[in-house]
C-alpha cells in the first residue's frame, strides 16, 4: 500500500520533469539556435557538409560587424528614448486616472473605467492606419514625436487598468485620516498614497517600457527614415534586406535587442506574473 503510493508519487514527479524538459526544448530551442548562429564563423554557417549544431571556432565577428557597420546602436538609443518618454507620460496620466477611477465617486466614473478597459483590448493593428493619417495631418509624420504620442494610446489604458487594481488594494482609511487632519485629497495622494504605491507604479512603468520596446506596427508606419527607426523596425527593415548571407549578424542583432527586456523581466518576474494574471484571475 505505502510503496504503491510512493511509486505513484515518484512517477508523477518524473512525468512532471519530463514535461518540463519537453517545454524547455520546444520553447527555448530558437534562442539556443540564434545564439549558436551568432557566434559561428561564416565558413561554418554556410557549410552544408557539416552538422548545423556543431561549432568549431566560435567568434564574435558578427557582433563586431553589427556594432561597427550598422546603425544598431543608434536604433537602440532611439528605442530607449521613445520608450522612456512614452512610458513617463503614460505613468503620470495613468496614475491620475487610476486614482480618480478607483477612489473618487462622480457621475460616469464606472462607465469611464469600463471604457478604458475596452480600449485596453483594442489591437494596435485596428488603429495604426487612421492614426498614421491623423498624425500626418498634425504634421508629425516620420518623427520620433509621432511614436512618443502614439505609444501612450495603448500604454495609458494598460497602466490605468493595472494601477486601478493597486489603488483598490490600499485601505481608504489611510487617506481619510490624512484628510481629517486637514490635508486636501491631492496632498493625501502625494504624501500618503503615492509613496505606498511606489512599487506598483514602478512595476507598471517596467511593463510599459517593455511594451514600447517591443512595439512594431506603429514604428513601422510612423517612423520611416532609417535614422529615427526603433530597434525592431530598424533590424527587420534595414538589415534583412541588406545582404543575403547576413544571418550571423542578424541573429546577433535579434539577441542583443532582446537582452534589455530579458534583464528587466529577470528582476521583476514576480510582479510580471502577478500583473499578467491579475486581470485573468480577478476578472
Amino acid at each position: 500500500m505505502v510503496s504503491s503510493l510512493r511509486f505513484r508519487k515518484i512517477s508523477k514527479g518524473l512525468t512532471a520533469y519530463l514535461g518540463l524538459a519537453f517545454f524547455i526544448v520546444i520553447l527555448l530551442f530558437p534562442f539556443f539556435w540564434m545564439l549558436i548562429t551568432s557566434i559561428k564563423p561564416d565558413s561554418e554557417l554556410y557549410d552544408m557538409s557539416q552538422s548545423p549544431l556543431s561549432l568549431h571556432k566560435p567568434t564574435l565577428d558578427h557582433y563586431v560587424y553589427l556594432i561597427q557597420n550598422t546603425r544598431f546602436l543608434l536604433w537602440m538609443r532611439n528605442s530607449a528614448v521613445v520608450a522612456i518618454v512614452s512610458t513617463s507620460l503614460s505613468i503620470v496620466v495613468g496614475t491620475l486616472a487610476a486614482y480618480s477611477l478607483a477612489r473618487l465617486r462622480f457621475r460616469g466614473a464606472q462607465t469611464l473605467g469600463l471604457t478604458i478597459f475596452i480600449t485596453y483590448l483594442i489591437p494596435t493593428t485596428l488603429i495604426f492606419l487612421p492614426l498614421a493619417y491623423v498624425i500626418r495631418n498634425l504634421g508629425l509624420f516620420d518623427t520620433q514625436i509621432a511614436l512618443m504620442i502614439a505609444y501612450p494610446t495603448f500604454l495609458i489604458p494598460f497602466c490605468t487598468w493595472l494601477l486601478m487594481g493597486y489603488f483598490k488594494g490600499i485601505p481608504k482609511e489611510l487617506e481619510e485620516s490624512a484628510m481629517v487632519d486637514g490635508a486636501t485629497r491631492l496632498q493625501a495622494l502625494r504624501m500618503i498614497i503615492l509613496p505606498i504605491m511606489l512599487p506598483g507604479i514602478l512595476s507598471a512603468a517596467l511593463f510599459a517600457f517593455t511594451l514600447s520596446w517591443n512595439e512594431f506596427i506603429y514604428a513601422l508606419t510612423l517612423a520611416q527614415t532609417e535614422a529615427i527607426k526603433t530597434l525592431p523596425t530598424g533590424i527587420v527593415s534595414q538589415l534583412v534586406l541588406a545582404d543575403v548571407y547576413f544571418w550571423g549578424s542578424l541573429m546577433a542583432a535579434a539577441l542583443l535587442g532582446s537582452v534589455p527586456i530579458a534583464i528587466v523581466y529577470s528582476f521583476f518576474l514576480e510582479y510580471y506574473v502577478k500583473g499578467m494574471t491579475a486581470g485573468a484571475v480577478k476578472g
Partner: protein
Amino acid sequence: MRTIPLQSWSNQLEKRMEVMSPRESFSPTIQQRLSAWFNQEKILGPALVAPAVLILLLLIAYPFCVAIWLSLTDKVIARSDTGNFIWFANFAKLFKDSIFQRTAINTFNFALVSVFFKLVLGLLMALVLDEVKLFKNFFRGILLLPWIVPTSLSALGWLWMFDSQFSVINHLLLDWGLIQEKIIWLGVPATAMLSVQIVNIWRGIPFFGISLLAGLQAIPQELYEAAEIDGANAWSKFWKVTFPLLMPVTAVVTLFSIVQTFADFQIVYVLTRGGPLNSTHLFATLTHQTAILAGRLGEGAAVSLFIFPVLVIAVILQLRYLQKQD
C-alpha cells in the same frame, strides 16, 4: 500589494501629518476657497481622469471615426485631395476580390488553429509547472521568454530556422529519419500557413501556461482532498474539480488571445509578407499592404475594419463575465 504591519502604517502617518497640519485662519482666502472647491470628488474626479480621456479621444476614438470615413471614400495616398465619398463600394469590391476572400479564410484559420493549440499546450504547461517544485521561479522565468522578447526579433530567428537551404529543422528531421526530403517551409502555401501558426503558437504557449498556472493555484486544496476522500482518481479529479474551476480564467485568457491572434501582424510580416500567393495574408497584413504599400487608403481602411467585429464580440462576452462576477 504586500501587507505592511499596522504599526508602521501609523508611524508613517504621524510623520506625514506633521508636515501638513493646516495653518490657522478665520476667513478663507480665494486660494483656499478654490482649493476647497477643487477638493470635491465631483470636480477632482473628472479633472484627474481628463488627460487620459483627452489623449484616448484624440488618438483612438477620433482615428477610429477617421477609419470609418476613409473606408467609405476612394482616398489614395498619391492624390492630396480628400477623396470621393463612394458609400460601400470598397466593401463591395472586397467581397468580390479573391485575395480578400483568401485573407478572410486565412485569418480565421490562423486564429482558430493557433488559439486551440495555445490553449491545449498552455494548459499542459500549467499542469506540468504546478508539479515542478525545484527552482520553480527560474523555470517559470525562462519559459516566459518567447512571450516577453520582441516578437519581430524572435520571428527573425524562425525565419532563419525555416530557411530554404539551411533550415535546422529540416536538418534535424532528416537526421532522425522523420522526413525523406526537405520541407519547403515558407515557399509553399500549405506549409507557409503552418509555419506562421507554429511561430504564433510558440510565442503564445507561455502566456496561456503562466496565466492558467495562476488559475490552478487559486483552486483551494481542500476540494482535491474532499474529492480524494470520495474516492476520485486523478482523471475524475481533473474533470470534476480542476476543469470547472479553471473555466473562468481560461475563458478570459482565451478571449484575449483570440482578439490578439486575429489581429496579428508581426509574425506574418517578418516571415512571409503575406505570401506565397497570398496564402498567409491576414487582415492586418493586407491592410498594411493595401493602404501603406499600394497607397489605397480607403480600401485599406475597409480591410482593417474587419478586425472590429471580433473585438466587439470579445468585449461583449468579457463585460457579461465581469457583470456575472459582480
